[in-house]
């Protein structure tokens, strides 16, 4: 059994509510469409990204609806939660 496939760990800054792994995202628009607060957007032909982080209520719908398992919603009380992911893929594209 694989012990750890994680090649990097990204420290998440306080206030970043949604982390999108853009290496895994296939751009299906499900998260953008399901978000009740219109936090996410996707440029034509691109990957989903957080556009209005301040509106996020951390409801988690984008995380449970993402078919690519590419989204993690950081709980509000986790100031510096360690999120493990693939190389360079843990932080949403800025």
């Amino acid at each position, binding site marked *: 059994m694989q012990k750890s496939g994680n090649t990097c760990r990204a420290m998440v800054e306080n206030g970043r509510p949604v982390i999108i792994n853009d290496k895994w995202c296939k751009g299906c*628009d499900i998260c953008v469409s399901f978000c009740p607060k219109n936090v996410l957007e996707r440029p034509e032909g691109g990957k989903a990204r957080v556009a209005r982080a301040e509106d996020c209520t951390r409801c988690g719908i984008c995380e449970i*609806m993402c*078919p690519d*398992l590419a989204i993690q919603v950081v709980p509000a009380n986790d100031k510096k939660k360690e999120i*493990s992911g*693939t190389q360079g893929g843990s932080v949403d594209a800025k």
Partner: protein
Amino acid sequence: MAKPITYYLRTDKMPHIWCEGCGHGIVLGAVLRAIDSLDLDKDNVCVVSGIGCASRAPGYLDFDTLHTTHGRALAFATGIKMMKPGLDVIVLAGDGDLAAIGGNHLIHAARRNINITTICFNNSIYGMTSGQYSPMTPTGKIATTAPYGHIEEPFDLCELVFAAGASLVGRGAAYHSGPLSRLIAKAIATDGFAFVEAVSQCPTYFGRRNKMKNALAMLDWQKEHAVTKKAASRLSPEELADKFVIGELGTRTRPEYTKRYESIIAAAAKETDENV
């Protein structure tokens, strides 16, 4: 989730091969959240699959996993459970793999009531081989092998498996990912054969041929056609005709197979001892 989803994934195998918007990823996420909610030991979970799109799932999971031959996931899983009854054995299979090629394994695993949790990723089509109709393709729908509309009626898999003797059957949908996850958690915790049909979407080979242009349209279809068991009890058969019922659809308490086997072994050992 207590742990990030990446804890349960072989992250070096990701991204997965499924098409954009494929419901299998949503169902797989629901399975992982169910496992997380039960706080199962990662080294005590064994996930088994057969062949097909859905059966690629265990390849991405950081448990002990087995990718077997077409339709035979339950046969292999039965062997694992008999040798190691303490393992949490979970079978992930598509509708074609489980209801057609492995149909007999399914009904007999349910009849034995062996403590295996089976999740059927039902996307109503053989996606991996470009969209032939499966036993779960609804009547009238278009498939590669049914270009003028499918003639047959699909199985009601939950009714079939419950009639065969399962301890728990239920149905969920990718659209209702949260309730689906809770249903799967209950299925895993059930002592006996537990079966969950997860209605998924194949935008590539089912949606596009059936006037649903993308995954969002297919999720809308799920939203409009899913009714809870309670709501269904108030609807007439005509109103229910094009709907599917979600929720926990049947439970019963029956002796579990590996426990019966152990008691037979104990009785046989005692008899042998007495004869010596």
